[in-house]
Structure formats: structure tokens, C-alpha cells
């Protein structure tokens, strides 16, 4: 098992997920011996703890049809899911931006609209 695999394995474990969640609520509970000057490995671990925390909470809310326990346990499938999830979020954002653009157009008579009715100054 390589370092990244090992870090991800630890980060998604119930033990570290519980400590991470407890540390958010109880100040005296901390993940590392040092509280500052985190190494790259520690930062990497923190990153994955947060990612898995998010995934477990989205799994609980059944937010995604392609997310299940097996996906979280399998690094390759988890990476693929995160990539796909990123694309979905990007699409959502673009759709929202396009809707905003349409909503910002000012029509004099909504329902009877030609390009001449659009106030491009706004």
C-alpha cells in the first residue's frame, strides 16, 4: 500500500472520522500532536479527512445516485466519482449563471418579446 492509499485508508476510517468530527465540537480533541506548522503529509491527511467527511454526509442525504459505501472504500472509484461530481457541480453552476443572465434581461412587455425589447444597458 503506498502512502496516499494509506493516508486515504486512515482518513475514511471510523476512528479518524470520529476524531475529526469531535475536534470540530470539542476544543481539547485534536488530530495531531502539533497544532501548527503542519507538514505536507498532515495537510494531505486533513484534506482527505474533509473529503471523506463530505462524502459520508452526502451519502447520508442520498444526494448522488452513483455514491455508495463501495465507492467510498475504493480509491479508484472514489476518484472517478469526485471527478464526475465536479463536472455535475460545474454544469449546475453554468446553468445557474445562464438563468441569472436571462433573469437580468429587462423586458417591457413580458410574454411578447423581440430582441428590440431587451434593454442591454442594464
Amino acid at each position, binding site marked *: *500500500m*503506498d*502512502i496516499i492509499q*494509506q*493516508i486515504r485508508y*486512515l482518513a475514511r476510517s471510523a476512528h479518524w472520522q470520529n476524531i475529526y468530527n469531535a475536534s470540530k465540537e470539542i476544543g481539547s480533541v485534536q488530530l*495531531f*500532536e*502539533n497544532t501548527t506548522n*503542519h*507538514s*505536507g*503529509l*498532515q*495537510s*494531505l*491527511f486533513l484534506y482527505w479527512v474533509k473529503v471523506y467527511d463530505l462524502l459520508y454526509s452526502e451519502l447520508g442525504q442520498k444526494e448522488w*445516485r*452513483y455514491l*455508495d459505501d463501495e*465507492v467510498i472504500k475504493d480509491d*479508484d*472509484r472514489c*476518484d*472517478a*466519482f469526485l*471527478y*464526475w*461530481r465536479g*463536472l455535475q457541480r460545474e454544469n449546475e453552476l453554468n446553468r445557474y449563471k445562464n438563468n441569472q443572465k436571462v433573469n437580468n434581461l429587462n423586458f417591457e412587455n413580458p410574454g411578447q418579446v423581440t430582441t428590440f425589447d431587451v434593454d442591454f444597458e442594464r
Partner: protein
Amino acid sequence: MENRDILNESVQDLENSNFSNGIVQDNKLIFTIGDKTYRVRMPIQSEQSSIDHKRNLAQLEYLNQEGCITRKQLTQKLKDLNLFDMDKIESQKNQLIKEFKQAQFILATSSNNSFAIGECKLKIEIIKNELKNIAINTSIQLAPSLESRLEKFIIEYTTFLVTDIQDGKEWKRVWETNEEFQKADSGLVERCAANITWLLLNHQG
């Protein structure tokens, strides 16, 4: 041993290492060779100053040496001699990344289809290996360049400074002087250098 073999061995060595919880608890990497336990750690400020100073001196020394060539010049020369085309390698890499993303998309949306999942995982593994081979090959081809030689120098000098060996409950420096380091077993140095490279690459600057 060929450069490629040494690199492959070092990469494989890191991939196969069984790291414990310790790697996330401090800034050090611990590993064993035979019955001895070693560790590499991030250099402290004074050591870092020494590394920077030595690096500058080495750069001046290399610049005065005959045949000193920068990475850009070497890339062009290799291309002109039809030995190694960096542009071609870059486009090959981009194509592989594109295929990698496609495979990831299929893998993400293939739940309940164990055959498709297996196929996609295999394809991803193959692409990852191809990308790794490209990286190793590129590094070998560009090894004679000034930049690569300086990188090698920094890694070796850092290895000399920050490698400790466990002696009972204490950690002691493996090499007290640069002369001792120069005479050291190359296998041990390679292993330590591979670990310090990993540590440096994963350190937040």
C-alpha cells in the same frame, strides 16, 4: 545499474512501503533497511540556509564546467538530433490525460456493473503507468541539464544533512561529514534520497 532501473526501483520502493500512522503525526519518514531503522526529516532553518548556499556554489561551479547545458538548450538539442521530442511527449501526455478523464467518467457512472468497473480500473491503471513511464523517461533524458544536476545536488546534500539512524531510543545522524557520505553505500543513499524527495515534494512551502 541503469538510471531507469534505479528510478523504477526507488518509485516501486516508495509504492510498496508500508507506512504507519506515524506519517501523519510529524514531519518525518521512517523506514527500515535490513535490521536498521532510519528516518529522514525536513531540514531546519540553519540547514536550509546551508543547502541554499551550497546550491548557489554548485550552480557557479557547474556553469564554469565544459558542456554545461540548460534544460531548454538540451530539449532543443535532443529534438534536433531526433533523439527525444519534448513537444511530442507533451501531446502524448495530454492525450493520455484525456483518456484518463474519459475512463474516470465511465467508472463513476458504472455502478452495479462489475465487468465495466473492472475494465475501467484496468484502463486507469495502464494509463497511470504510461504517465509514470513518460515522467521517468523525461527525467532520464533531461538528467544532464544544469537544472536537473542542481536538483540532484540539492537532494543529495539534503539527504546527507537530514538522515538519522536509530540507536537505542535515540536518533543519530548517519553521516557526520560529507566525506563519510561520499563513501557511503550507494543503495542506502538511493533509499534515503527517494524518501527525502517524497518528503520535500509533500511539504507545504
